């Protein structure tokens, strides 16, 4: 389940292969995916990236 169709897969692959962008890990924020989303199910603290939506 959750396999995308052939046409969509081809469109995505083509877009990736034709891109000249070089991805750099320096731009990745691993910490903002952790506790602020409370994925552990026990901890949902406020954080600058998601708590102050207003």
């Amino acid at each position, binding site marked *: *389940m*959750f396999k995308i169709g052939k046409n969509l897969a081809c469109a995505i692959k083509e877009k990736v292969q034709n891109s000249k962008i070089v991805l750099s890990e320096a731009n990745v924020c691993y910490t903002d995916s952790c506790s602020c*989303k409370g994925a552990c199910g026990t901890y*949902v603290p406020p954080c600058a990236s998601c708590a102050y939506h207003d």
Partner: protein
Amino acid sequence: MKETEIKNIKYITIIATHNCNLNCSYCYEQHKSTEKMDVDLVKKIIQNELNIDDNFDLVAIDFFGGEPFLEFDSIINIIDFVKAQKHKKEFSFFAGTNGTILSEKYKQWLVDNKNIFSLALSLDGTKTMQDINRSNSFDLIDIDFFVNKFSNVTVKMTISQDTLEYLAEGVEFLHKSGFQFINCNLAMGVDWLNENNSFTLENELEKLINFYLENPLLAPCSLLNYNIQNIAYYSKKIAHKYCGAGTRMKIYDIDGKVYPCQYFMPLAIGEKSLATENIVFSDIIKSSDLDTMCQKCIVVDICPSCYGSNFAGTGNIYGRDPAFCKLSKIIIKANSYFKAKQWELGLLSLDEYQEQELLKGIMMIQEQL
């Protein structure tokens, strides 16, 4: 406090009490008691955290339990004290509550202090779901209060084996009730072995994906909002620790003793807690230190591995539960499918760089997971 820039945040959890007025079916705190925090000790701890020289600009202080609002008067006392002092760092307070014991007086205090005090409500979906998981407590919660007075409140919906079949219905219910931010996850540390769980989870995720594609203005719940773009940076040699346990998080138990996260406390795992002192946590993990089933897994950086639950189950913070791993892979595959469909329909607002990250992540999951 309003924040528009990312600050370097330290997360401090204060255990307000070991007591809880509910008895949730999946609760990992197996050693509850009526013990509670020492207010003067907590004031000293917070003062110290707000004034020591470290690299953090903001201290996010979380009151946890048991049910922290059983000690509401003490929490008010502590916050009034902290507000009255000058500190080197900014601060904010937070509590996750079951929402069942809020008097009008306490509700008013929360409204009056919403500039420094954020809330999350534990509510497991519809009345049926909540009552199955959380001690028949649905009717005790003033949902309108949370939705109307705290527009940014997060609702935390935990899914147990008994409520898995209602997952999509529960999320839709929470959206219809007015919650914008739904943090939805499978219960940790429980037995997910039943083979039917995979089938049920797939069906429910499919319903949920269709719901969000039909309602593109809603923010998808956390179950369909994984950072799958990070997979584009997968490394065979290292992994990134999924949560802040032991590095960016610090938990103070009622006696002032510090733990890496609440799952390592005696309140949760009893005597096993004694062995946690020697555990070394690092935000970067050598792949060879991981469970063998994770060492070559391309989604290791986004997989919700709970180090406390791993430790409680296997004695090793990296030791995984294969049944939970199987369900996590289904969720991640569902995320890749959902994001691909959103991209196809033009529902995502991404710059060229973000688009490349995401599409690469999608393809890696589709082809290799």
